[in-house]
């Protein structure tokens, strides 16, 4: 069976993504962990591209890699890193937890429903699922109510972050 270019790209992105995830979970220094998570996010963005979700790949890079990780890096500047690094990296029961995690992966591989392979229905009018146009029209027609509710979620998050994070003034 000939291996297509898409499969080679997938193999690279998957291997690099898994390696990044392992390194992100195991590095002692939180800054290194953040950088490996950044690498993982970029590879996942590549996988989104491969799966034909161009808009989400861009959002992944802008929001996840660009905004969320920057928040983490800023936060790391506020804490006492050398002291954190000196502490234990893993809990005492880490082999058990690792077993649970790997057990989850094993179950997920075991139950990958074989019927799904053939279950793809032929849609009547196959939309170009990658285009921003189809994404936007679905977002603002079919999903407009959840979209509006999202603005409330963001508002609550902004207010909550400010309220929780502000320094208490002496009353």
């Amino acid at each position, binding site marked *: 069976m000939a291996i297509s270019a898409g499969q080679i790209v997938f193999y690279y992105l998957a291997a690099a993504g898994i390696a990044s995830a392992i390194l992100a979970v195991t590095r002692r220094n939180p800054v290194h962990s953040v950088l490996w998570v950044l690498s993982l996010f970029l590879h996942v963005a590549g996988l989104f591209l491969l799966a034909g979700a161009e808009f989400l790949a861009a959002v992944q890079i802008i929001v996840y890699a660009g905004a969320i990780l920057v928040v983490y890096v800023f936060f790391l500047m506020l804490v006492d890193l050398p002291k954190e690094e000196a502490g234990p990296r893993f809990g005492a029961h880490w082999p058990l937890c690792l077993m649970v995690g790997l057990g989850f992966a094993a179950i*997920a591989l075991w139950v990958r429903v074989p019927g799904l392979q053939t279950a793809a229905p032929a849609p009547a009018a196959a939309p170009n699922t990658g285009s921003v146009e189809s994404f936007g029209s679905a977002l603002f027609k079919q999903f407009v109510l959840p979209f509006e509710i999202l603005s409330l979620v963001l508002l*609550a998050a902004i207010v*909550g972050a400010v309220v929780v994070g502000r320094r208490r003034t002496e009353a």
Partner: protein
Amino acid sequence: MNGVPLSWYLILSAILFALGAAGFMIRKNMITVFMCIELMLNAVNLSFVAFSRHFKTIDGQIFTFFVMVVAAAEAAVGLAIILTVFRNRSTLQVDDIDSLRL
């Protein structure tokens, strides 16, 4: 379809999710624990996008978009809480933090 079957995406997504879950449980540093949540969310996003492509509908991508927004909100609020805990206790080791108040 560029030749990548759905099951490959799902297997990769399961592995990434398991790594995130294992990291969430084994790490002692609160920030890294928090980052493992992002890792799990990303793994789930990947399977959403893969299903979206497989079934040729846009719904999975919309869901991924919503997950991203919620992840951003969660990062902002969660890090604010962690910052407050750090101010009060000057540590981020989860074993030393057994309650939110002093």
